[in-house]
């Protein structure tokens, strides 16, 4: 175990030295990896910000429950009781009288309503659910429409559905981008490691002849891949943070013009740390594929 750990430590430090000895190559590789990881990460962050921007708007979504105009008062009371149990604090009652007064106070409506022989408006419940997806709201609408005395349940959620559809499309695009750039990162690492393997072909051959296992030969290259991917991911995180801090002020100014207190959010610590972790994993995969293929091509096993 001790030997195994020591060999890993040695392989890691060799990989580090290899990166250090070719600073320009290393920097260029890290930049390529960093930029490749920044794009999907920025897309993800953008969607997250748009989502949080939309959360405020969600609070305005309404479900209107119109009672039958003939519904007896005890039926309306029963409905109030049920709503109070089911959605405490998320609804308000608008009596037909109250609704009529509101209409009469509206410009151009007063005369129309004054000419009517009786109040045509029903009692209504305005429900504003705290947090709900369009699917939840539709389910709620269908459910509440079944209550006794309810003539019509109306959901004002078309724009929310569009918003969610936009977010879903955005998410799909970001996922595809992430997939493409992950493949790109693997390819970059694959190629870099392949060049390193070829440059050390003599050493690998000698090592094999004198008893090195494939795992021993693979180890420093895998650490190279892990380091490149991890540091590239770290660079992506830094680029992302820098981008957010550059845009923060402009976004705040724009949102203030719309009377909003929206603040552009940077990546959370977990998300920031995820970038080097994903980069390291992809770098390891690229290196593993590259060195395994190269070793197979340099096969010295007895034929």
């Amino acid at each position, binding site marked *: 175990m001790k*030997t*195994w750990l*020591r*060999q890993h430590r*040695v392989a890691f430090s060799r990989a580090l030295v290899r990166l250090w000895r070719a600073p320009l190559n290393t920097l260029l590789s890290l930049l390529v990896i960093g930029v490749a990881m920044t794009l999907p990460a920025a897309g993800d962050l953008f969607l997250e910000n748009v989502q949080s921007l939309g959360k405020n708007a969600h609070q305005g979504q309404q479900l209107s429950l119109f009672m039958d105009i003939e519904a007896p008062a005890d039926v309306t009371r029963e409905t109030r009781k049920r709503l109070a149990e089911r959605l405490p604090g998320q609804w308000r009652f608008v009596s037909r009288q109250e609704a009529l007064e509101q209409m009469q106070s509206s410009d151009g409506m007063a005369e129309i309503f004054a000419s009517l022989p009786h109040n045509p408006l029903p009692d209504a419940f305005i429900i504003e659910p705290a947090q709900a997806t369009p699917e939840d709201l539709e389910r709620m609408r269908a459910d509440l429409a079944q209550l006794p005395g309810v003539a019509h349940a109306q959901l004002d959620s078309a724009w929310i559905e569009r918003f969610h559809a936009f977010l879903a499309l955005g998410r799909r695009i970001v996922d595809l981008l992430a997939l493409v750039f992950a493949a790109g990162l693997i390819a970059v690492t694959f190629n870099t490691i392949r060049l390193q393997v070829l440059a050390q072909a*003599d*050493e690998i*051959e*000698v*090592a*094999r*002849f*004198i*008893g*090195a*296992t494939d795992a*021993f030969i693979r180890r420093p290259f895998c650490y190279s891949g892990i380091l490149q991917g991890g540091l590239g991911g770290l660079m992506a995180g830094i680029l992302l943070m820098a981008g957010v801090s550059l845009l923060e002020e402009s976004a705040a100014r724009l949102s203030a013009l719309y009377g909003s207190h929206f603040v552009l959010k940077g990546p959370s610590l977990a998300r920031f740390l995820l970038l080097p972790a994903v980069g390291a994993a992809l770098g390891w995969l690229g290196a593993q594929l590259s060195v395994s293929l190269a070793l197979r091509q340099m096969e*010295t*096993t*007895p*034929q």
Partner: protein
Amino acid sequence: MIVGDHLTKRYPGGFEALRDLSLEIARGEMIFLIGHSGAGKTTLLKLIGAIERPTSGSLVVNGQNLFALRKKALPYLRRNLGQVFQDQKLLFDRSVLENVLLPLDIIGLPLREAQRRARAALDKVGLLEREKARPITLSGGEQQRLAIARAVVNRPAILLADEPTANLDLKAARQVLDLFVAFNRVGVTVLISTHEPPEIPEHTTRCVILDHGRLAS
């Protein structure tokens, strides 16, 4: 120690480097494999060194049947063999000491112990004072001695040397052969191939002559 039975090695294209060769080498022997170029000396050493596999026949090295050995077990077999290659295969971007450290690095010896053993091996071949030098700065004889130091640093039971005196002047060749004799005296089985035998040391157990892949004597 080494038992080859009806060994044949045929390369792609049909060239037969070894033909139905049977050979037995006991522990502690020092043997010269003599033959012209293409006689099969290098091929035989490669088979014993588990670098190539015979086309037919069987080969047991250090109690291990190479045919039955799994691919993953080969590196562990090779660690018990010291090999001096015809082209030496030194690493020219590493120092003399680092070249000798390589086999010890592979077995995972702690650095301090590895350095102690590597220096002892360099001392035996007379290169301790050149430990920081690059192999490219060494003479032919010194490079050969460095290759020997790397081959013996792991304390192998068998030492295989392919043309170790080729391209060396008589004095350097004698120094190299003296080293093999010294290792053989402490129990290492030594197998040396050569196409033009220098002064064969008296200590040699026997000479095996190969001709077109067959034993000539």
